[in-house]
């Protein structure tokens, strides 16, 4: 009912703790098969936290083996059973399974589904001013496909031959031949099924995010008034919709190779002196297909974290984000480049060196938009009125990791230096900092910042600080020494180095890394306690605890289905009007028209008022109430 009459903007609704819409439905429709984007976001978050803990524990188990090769792990037998050898060591093949599953879980289940799934679902409708996603049903399906995928992946830990063990990249022929190792049997089949389900979930989610952002924005929410979080989720979803189908294509061909006897990726293989029937395939072809997804996947993981930190850094520096359009431009540029650099993962596969140098050039160009982003973060912080909330600390931590991890990317992107460094711990250190830890910190920052909107309560800041400092120091203690270990030539994925004279050194450094890993994981329990305690017992949040400008803080404390009890607010300005000279307050929400802030308007903004008011029949106004 768009009435264009003068309008009294009386707020007829109590902005109480609860909005007064009637909640229909039962437990199943409200909490389990719910189509509300906020509940789905929470489902993604909780599942993501479960997987993060699970993946973290896996990493500590294999760090025990690497840091303390002589230690008896007999005490893990109740948990791992036959995977602890009679000598009290981790079974060598199970070690590979641990590494594989740690990678798969962290990359896909935590930092893709847990990060994008949580924050895209939660923030897109709230920040663009929509009642819900374009299709709540598809959104629900997206979660349940993810859940199903999780169940299948988890079940592979409970089979006799163990989970997939060929590395998270599942390169054939190791992954294609069930007889190659235990993990290539049923475990690999379950991995492929789980990933197929995961891709379906990602596509359903991604299509929904893009559709919602483009078509469901509230009045006045033009593209250049969208918060950077939304821009980041937007690019992330586009990358996902374009790259996940390619992984699906590769996985399908791999399934045919494994189960139907084709030879897309197999050729000239001898097992026990016997030649296999498979001829004519190429394992390198799989790598091309895999990394065509695999590299964009890195940015699927990272971009949402960058968007979240942009928002948090601007809010808590009480300053407009520096270079709003440069931020969008650099994300767009990163998104485009992400599709044309995949072969830098394959410099040593025997590719033409000329081709290698092209991919090297394209890879190094990514440093440009990345540097723009770092520069903008720092200039936003510069002379800001900084509030060190937990979320802010984690965002600054992200910037730090993005920088230290990004710099080693310049070494690795170089096709000549890569000959020495590929498949060493240098690579492990690089991507854990720039993609793993940076994205994880973005996710943590998001949880701390939007917790009041998720659950209507505040998390404990003191515990947040402890969590941050332990994790921040811990992460650097884990991954910084790895650069040295890597330069010394230590290869990834090796079960044990003590058998090689070359790798006898650095035992103490490896012990340090393992101790730090255990500390870092322990620190996460502080977060878990804080998180679950605060859901029930945290201090009640005010409507806009961070004095933020974006739309989600105009909803009631616990927004109900539909997010806003009355009209959806219209938007009149960009989301970064912090500390605007002349303004009454140090922030102006997006919903405040320029006509109400004459004292702080810039000349062109005053122009905007005139332009708008001459547009209709005299006094113009927003829609009347729907009631």
């Amino acid at each position: 009912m768009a009435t264009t009459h003068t309008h009294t903007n009386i707020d007829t609704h109590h902005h109480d703790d609860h909005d007064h819409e009637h909640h229909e439905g039962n437990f199943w429709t409200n909490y389990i098969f719910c189509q509300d984007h906020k509940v789905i976001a929470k489902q993604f978050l909780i599942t993501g936290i479960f997987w993060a803990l699970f993946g973290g524990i896996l990493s500590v188990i294999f760090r025990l083996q690497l840091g303390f090769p002589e230690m008896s792990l007999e005490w893990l037998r109740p948990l791992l059973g036959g995977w602890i050898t009679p000598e009290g060591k981790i079974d060598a093949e199970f070690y590979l399974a641990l590494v594989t599953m740690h990678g798969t879980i962290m990359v896909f289940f935590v930092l893709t589904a847990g990060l994008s799934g949580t924050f895209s679902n939660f923030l897109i409708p709230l920040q663009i001013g929509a009642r819900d996603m374009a299709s709540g049903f598809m959104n629900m399906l997206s979660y349940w496909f993810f859940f199903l995928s999780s169940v299948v992946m988890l079940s592979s830990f409970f089979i006799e031959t163990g989970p997939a063990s060929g590395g998270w990249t599942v390169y054939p022929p190791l992954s294609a031949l069930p007889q190659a190792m235990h993990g290539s049997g049923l475990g690999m089949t379950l991995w492929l099924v789980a990933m197929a389900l995961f891709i379906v979930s990602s596509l359903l989610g991604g299509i929904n995010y893009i559709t919602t952002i483009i078509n469901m924005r509230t009045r006045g929410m033009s593209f250049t008034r969208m918060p950077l979080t939304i821009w980041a989720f937007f690019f992330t979803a586009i990358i996902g919709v374009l790259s996940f189908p390619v992984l699906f294509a590769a996985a399908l061909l791999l399934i045919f190779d494994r189960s139907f006897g084709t030879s897309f990726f197999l050729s000239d293989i001898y097992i026990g002196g016997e030649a296999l029937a498979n001829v004519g395939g190429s394992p390198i072809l799989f790598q091309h297909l895999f990394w065509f997804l695999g590299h964009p996947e890195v940015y699927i993981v990272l971009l949402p974290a960058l968007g979240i930190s942009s928002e948090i850094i601007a809010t808590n520096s009480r300053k407009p984000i520096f270079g709003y359009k440069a931020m969008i431009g650099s994300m767009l540029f990163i998104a485009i480049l992400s599709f044309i650099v995949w072969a830098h993962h394959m410099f040593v596969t025997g590719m033409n060196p000329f081709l290698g140098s092209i991919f090297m050039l394209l890879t190094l160009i990514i440093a440009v938009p990345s540097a723009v982003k770092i520069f903008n973060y720092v200039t936003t912080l510069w002379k800001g009125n900084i509030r060190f909330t937990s979320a802010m600390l984690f965002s600054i931590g992200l910037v730090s990791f993005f920088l230290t991890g990004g710099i080693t990317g310049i070494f690795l992107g170089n096709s000549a230096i890569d000959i020495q460094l590929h498949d060493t711990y240098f690579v492990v250190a690089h991507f854990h900092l720039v993609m793993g830890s940076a994205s994880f910190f973005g996710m943590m920052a998001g949880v701390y910042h939007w917790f009041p909107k998720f659950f209507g309560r505040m998390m404990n800041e003191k515990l947040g600080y402890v969590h941050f400092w332990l994790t921040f120091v811990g992460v650097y203690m884990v991954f910084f020494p790895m650069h040295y270990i890597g330069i010394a030539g230590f290869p990834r994925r090796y079960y044990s180095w003590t058998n090689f004279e070359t790798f006898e050194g650095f035992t103490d450094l490896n012990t340090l890394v393992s101790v730090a890993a255990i500390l870092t994981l322990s620190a996460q329990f502080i977060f878990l306690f804080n998180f679950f305690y605060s859901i029930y017992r945290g201090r009640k949040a005010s409507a806009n605890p961070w004095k933020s400008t974006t739309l989600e803080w105009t909803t009631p404390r616990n927004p109900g289905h539909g997010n806003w009890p009355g009209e959806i607010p219209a938007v009149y300005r960009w989301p970064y009007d912090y500390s605007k000279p002349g303004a009454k307050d140090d922030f102006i929400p997006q919903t405040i028209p320029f006509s109400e802030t004459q004292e702080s308007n810039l000349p062109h903004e005053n122009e905007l008022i005139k332009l708008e008011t001459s547009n209709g029949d005299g006094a113009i106004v927003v829609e009347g109430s729907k009631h």
Partner: protein
Amino acid sequence: MSVDIKEFKIIEEAKKPLSMNPKKFALWLFMMSVVMLFGAWTSAYLVKRADTGWAEIILPAQFWTNSVLVVLSSVTMIWAYLAAKRDNIQQLKIALAATMFLGISFLVGQYMAYGEMVALKQHLTGSNVSHSFLWILPAVHGLHIVSGLVFLAIVFINTFMFKVHSKSLIQLEMCATYWHFLGGLWLYLFIFLLLNP
């Protein structure tokens, strides 16, 4: 919370941002991901073809007939759309039934094409990789055709419930878009295989 009362304020109008029907938009995005899927397979095909040891494929003659069927089904789909636009429900039902019939004939035709491939000793396994590709590509396309037929069936049932007419075209339009896309996808695959045996 305080209740703000701002009486008779003159404020600038917030413009409604550009948007289209979300469902149609989502369909286009889905088709984009299908393009990427088939793009991946056909690029893999090209990469593999450049390798040594590639045996050239012989396309079944049945593919020509099937391609004609696909084009015809798109024509009947356009007919269905025009009929719905003119509220000619009887014609709409006939046209949709014809489209479904042609779609099913296409699948039967593809099945016969597989028979021809076997006769030409181009098997899924045991022969050259090129033959494996020749089996997989029509198969995955056929799966998409099945999804298109399901969509058509839903629209067909809805015509009997008087839910498809000139005032309610969105579902039919989406179905038509998807169907033309699948037809186009087949023609792409066919021409691709013709040009890169």
